[in-house]
């Protein structure tokens, strides 16, 4: 194996910082037994983290959103591996994130408007950390992704509740605004959701997948009514059922433990979703909000790969380097089509622009298809 520049200490890296004394600013905040507590002040343009050097162990971040946009807070390890996150912090609210941080170099990020790379800051965690054995790296991948799924399902439930309430209140503009946001959380964990084959078509089935004797329900049924006739006066029962189905899938997804191989295949499956459904505009044929889904699929794929990253760095460092490069390439191609806090509509993109997106997804999906074998070795 050639060594690569990616052998930087990841969260599980073997950089023993024994002997490094904790700095004073941090000591003031150490409550024995409760670990580190950190205050985060988030606005639409600032992400103020009051402590940036911690001791290894449990850390608690209290995130206050004093901006006007809904915010998110993340703690990332190398390659944007999510160590912990809180989603959906409404303006004026505070939320807490408790996370176990081994020694290493991290980044904090606020995401006002819940989009983009966010406002980043460095976070250093010192202490001793043993090198993680290969199999332990895979076990950790499962746990890490589990945290991600849990955070996404919580937000999915909240946003679906809001969406359903707007539909039942007959508030068409509000329902239209919430629709792509609620679906973002769904699309990020789509492979997990799809593993529950009975629920998936009810929640996310497109009109053509509905079989004889089955009713067309779920997100896309309401999408059709919102964007074609604008009449959602009869959609109350459909909305109620959507919420019940989402509640059930959230409970099931939270209990699900994915194997590393399933993670790897999920990362690929998410890109296949993009390539076959979102690039073509088939998924959101009435609302044309396909780029929201595209971005969410991409984020979900990246989260799965990030969870596997420590294992992949041990097993296939060149592949990790290639994936980093290609993820950046897709993000750059997609980033051109931002529109405020959201995305341009599929119908606003030219054929050449769609082809560029398609090419970038193909370039990423080929190396992603090799992750499973690296994990299975």
């Amino acid at each position: 194996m050639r060594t690569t520049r990616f052998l930087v200490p990841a969260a599980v890296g073997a950089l023993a910082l024994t002997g490094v004394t904790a700095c004073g600013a941090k000591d003031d905040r150490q409550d024995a037994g409760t670990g580190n507590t950190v205050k985060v002040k988030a606005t639409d343009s600032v992400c103020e983290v009051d402590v940036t050097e911690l001791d290894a162990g449990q850390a608690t971040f209290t995130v206050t959103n004093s901006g006007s946009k809904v915010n998110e807070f993340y703690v990332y390890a190398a390659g944007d591996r999510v160590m912990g996150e809180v989603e959906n912090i409404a303006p004026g609210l505070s939320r807490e994130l408790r996370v176990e941080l081994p020694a290493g170099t991290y980044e904090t990020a606020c995401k006002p408007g819940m989009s983009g790379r966010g406002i980043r800051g460095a976070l250093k965690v010192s202490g001793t950390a043993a090198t993680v054995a290969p199999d332990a790296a895979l076990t950790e991948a499962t746990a890490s992704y589990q945290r991600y799924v849990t955070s996404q399902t919580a937000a999915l439930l909240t946003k679906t509740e809001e969406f359903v309430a707007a539909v039942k209140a007959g508030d068409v503009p509000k329902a239209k605004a919430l629709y792509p946001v609620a679906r973002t959380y769904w699309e990020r964990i789509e492979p997990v959701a799809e593993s529950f084959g009975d629920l998936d078509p009810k929640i996310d089935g497109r009109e053509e997948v509905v079989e004889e004797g089955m009713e067309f329900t779920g997100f896309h049924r309401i999408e059709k009514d919102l964007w074609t006739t604008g009449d959602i006066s009869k959609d109350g029962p459909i909305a109620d059922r959507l919420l019940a189905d989402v509640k059930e899938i959230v409970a099931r997804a939270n209990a699900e433990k994915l194997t590393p191989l399933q993670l790897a295949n999920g990362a690929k499956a998410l890109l296949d979703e993009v390539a076959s459904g979102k690039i073509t505009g088939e998924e959101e044929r009435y609302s044309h909000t396909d780029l929201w889904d595209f971005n969410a699929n991409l984020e979900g794929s990246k989260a799965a790969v990030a969870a596997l990253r420590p294992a992949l760095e041990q097993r296939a460092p060149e592949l990790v380097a290639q994936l980093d490069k290609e993820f950046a390439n897709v993000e750059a191609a997609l980033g051109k089509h931002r529109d405020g806090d959201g995305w341009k509509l599929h119908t606003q993109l030219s054929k050449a622009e769609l082809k560029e997106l398609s090419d970038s997804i193909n370039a990423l999906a080929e190396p992603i298809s090799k992750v499973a074998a690296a994990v299975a070795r």
Partner: protein
Amino acid sequence: MSEQSSTAGRGRRRLSRRRAITLAGVGVAGVAGVAAGAGALTRDGDRAAAYDGAAGAVPFHGEHQAGITTPAQDRLHFVAFDVITKDRDRLVAMLQEWTAAAARMTGGKDAGVIGAVGGMPEAPPDDTGEALGLPPSQLTLTVGFGATLFRDAQGGDRFGIAARRPAALADLPHFAGDALRPEISGGDLCVQACANDPQVAVHAIRNLARIGMGVVSVRWSQLGFGRTSSTSRDQATPRNLFGFKDGTANLKAEDAGLLREQLWAHPDDGTDWMAGGSYLVTRKIRMQIETWDRSSLVEQEQIVGRTKGSGAPLGRRDEFDEPDFAAKGDDGQPVIAVDSHVRLAHPTLNNGARLLRRGYNYVDGSDGLGRLDAGLFFMAYQRDPRRQFVPIQTQLARNDSMNEYLRHVSSGLFACPPGVRDAADWWGRALFS
């Protein structure tokens, strides 16, 4: 057959697993140098060498690229790519991988070193598999470089080779009546796959496109059937979709002197890296089939300048008789009309310029108006398009009475480098070194 492969695969499993990871498509430069035999299964249990004739293999290595003077095969899958990376090293690594894969596939082997079966069950196979069990089928793969590789549409020199663009690769002029669609014209690179089995040709292009993901993107492609030219005296002259023999006066592999003069670029032509290469012009020519079919036999023959049955020039007896352009009929008019296709395209009217034509018929389904979407995918190789294709086509575009039934909808011009000498050589090495 598949049983044989999978047994071989099982025996190799341990080795393959390691290879699967270390060679896992991470653009391993130097793969080109890996002997194709190492770990590669032949598609037919290592018996590719047993095939000959139409099922046999055409040697990949040589002074010139195969697929030019090679006796024209029955089927074509042609593809033009755009390069989507700005990274010269990645492009070079891909060309090396392409060359290694092409050497394997033309020899009847899988595209990758592991193969369509027998690798790790969790990994996608490095060959797509649809050619398992099929013989080499005289597959040739011929690569070419378009002008936009040297300087892109914005004038950028992406790969530091703008100064190496051959003068002969000058953009074709607009010809009278051209109705070119930009999205199916041009391209930074092209690959011509010809084989006697369409599945083998498609398989080759599909696997090269896959290897190229992230480096190149398919710009357009064309399937063709029923070669419309003979490139060897051993071959009968085939017919195009107008029902006429096409390519009677073609350059042939046996005309060594003419090939030197008309087909291959010379070292003193001004572009050293092209010595032994050739320039390819592609034109997709839609035929107005339905209106042609309603025209009388005599009109058809006058337009072409040959008889429909034997292919003999009007006024002569046999296909290979020289046309007599001076001959007059009882009405005092030339027997071969002044606006006939044969007369306007003939070397005597074009300062002796000849072409090695290698075109194919195509039918792309129908056009929704009840008409076949069909015609000729014209391909011609030559030493210098400025002195060959351009003057000939200028004449034809202005005066050919056949134009009423034709529409040129796509155009391409590519510099096809000399042959790949051996396993250490690769497509475009002289250009990029």
